[in-house]
């Protein structure tokens, strides 16, 4: 089975962000960028499926600027076989990303598509579900376990999902879309020889025009602001003092 994995280039999760002085957006100049953490988990899951003999080929795909090829190379170093870069310098909203991925799905005909559940920049949590709708596939979102074989029916994948009340398990007809949650796996690090080998793996480019997708969006970003800062408070010397403050100052007890 061919597995398609979508990855996104985002700000490194350790970086403290700055809003541009003109409030037009977050300032990303000279900021450390990385693969979205949930996408790392998606790549890792695909690699594990290949190690188990379930996946036969892993294709990594990204939608983004020229520089996003770095993240594709990372995916290749981690075990993807080849990569597709849908190149655009424009700001692309989730719906357009889903349409572009649908274009790639039509070309590649994967048995399974794995994406991160959300990107840590927009925090949208939309793309996987939108792709599933456009491709008329079932969706296993917020996955903490993805199972094949082992009592799972032929032509299906069983996905355990992290939901507000606990865990839910569903069976999806293949091809299907899975989005990853934090506890699906712990991603490995790329080894140096694999990083060298990744440079020689095939990386194809596509454009939105070639896929016949307009990246125009019904949403416009009017303003980006820094939220009101919480002021740090005081350190207290004892439990008695804490109880007194909570009762008499904050009045929450």
């Amino acid at each position, binding site marked *: 089975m061919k597995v398609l994995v979508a990855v996104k280039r985002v700000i490194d999760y350790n970086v403290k962000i700055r809003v541009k002085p003109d409030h037009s957006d*977050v300032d990303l100049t000279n900021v450390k960028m990385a693969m979205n953490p949930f996408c790392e988990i998606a790549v890792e899951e695909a690699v594990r499926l290949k190690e188990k003999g379930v996946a036969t080929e892993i294709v990594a795909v990204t939608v983004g600027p020229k520089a996003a090829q770095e993240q594709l190379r990372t995916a290749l170093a981690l075990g993807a076989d080849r990569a597709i870069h849908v190149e655009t310098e424009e700001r692309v909203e989730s719906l357009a990303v889903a349409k572009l991925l649908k274009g790639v799905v039509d070309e590649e005909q994967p048995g399974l598509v794995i994406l991160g559940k959300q990107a840590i920049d927009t925090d949208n949590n939309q793309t996987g579900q939108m792709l599933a709708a456009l491709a008329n596939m079932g969706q296993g979102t917020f996955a903490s376990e993805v199972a094949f074989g082992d009592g799972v029916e032929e032509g299906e994948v069983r996905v355990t999902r992290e939901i*507000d*009340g606990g865990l839910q398990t569903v069976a999806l007809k293949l091809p299907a879309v899975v989005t990853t949650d934090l506890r699906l796996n712990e991603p490995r690090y790329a080894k140096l020889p694999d990083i060298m080998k990744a440079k020689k793996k095939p990386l194809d480019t596509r454009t939105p025009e070639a896929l016949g997708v307009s990246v125009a969006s019904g949403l416009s970003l009017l303003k980006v602001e820094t939220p009101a800062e919480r002021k740090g408070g005081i350190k207290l010397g004892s439990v008695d003092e804490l109880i007194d403050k909570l009762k008499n100052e*904050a009045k929450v*007890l």
Partner: protein
Amino acid sequence: MSILVLAEHHDGQLAAGTAHVVGAALAIGGDIDILVAGDDVAGVAEAAARLDGVSCVRVADAPAYAHQLAEPLAELLAQLADDYSHVLAAASTEGKNVLPRVAALKDVSQISEILSVESADTFKRPIYAGNAIATVQSSDAFKVITVRTTAFDPVADGGGATIEALDIVVSSELSRFIGEELAQNERPELGGARVVISGGRGMGNGDNFKLLDGIADKLGAAIGASRAAVDAGFVPNDMQVGQTGKIVAPDLYIAVGISGAIQHLAGMKDSKVIVAINKDDEAPIFQVADYGLVGDLFEILPELEQKL
């Protein structure tokens, strides 16, 4: 304008979040209907009809909607879309699962997890783990929106909406429900609790979470956790507070043995009063805490429980 709110329910009970979503719908303005979809949900429909400000509760009662699977539910919502200018749901795992699918079926964008309504087409929402707030405007004729429930006051009970049965049954071959493992919990729900006490990696192991029980009992608190505590297997995933877990904004949040990573702060920094208990006096959690106690949680927690 007319707004459809997707009701959330569990075990025949309307979820508390739905009244907050109706609160957001009121801020947008216009006629408000609620969709209750599920299997055997007459009781939920009655509860939804009592919410203030609601005109009509539309009920899709069929086995196909049991367990709220996204595939049939999104199809149903897409079929109802033509009657509405907006569809709203809570930014819960259910709303997040279903609504983007509706948006794609209708070829429109989704606005995720709104914090405020600026006008009927303009909203504020958090980005970058809440470290920036974006104001976004939608020109789509049909707007698909999830709502951060802690950011909107709930509407009261006292309404008398009409109840209308829908006979649209959509079934989907794409997915099948297998099972559920739901946390059994006598405590208040994390998202709605007035007091939340959360433990982190500093708790050391799952057994030590019992140290929080007595305090939670005395305060009527819900118990939460950091990702590190969940990843380490101390407690189940439904207790995680943060960017990718639950968002809470109680009157009082007590963080115990939690360092205060931005991803954790994203889930609790709108709490009214924050207390931090940590042995490291430089832990970043103290930068957002109103009251801090520097010390060993294994000494502080028993004393706190006893003196409360």
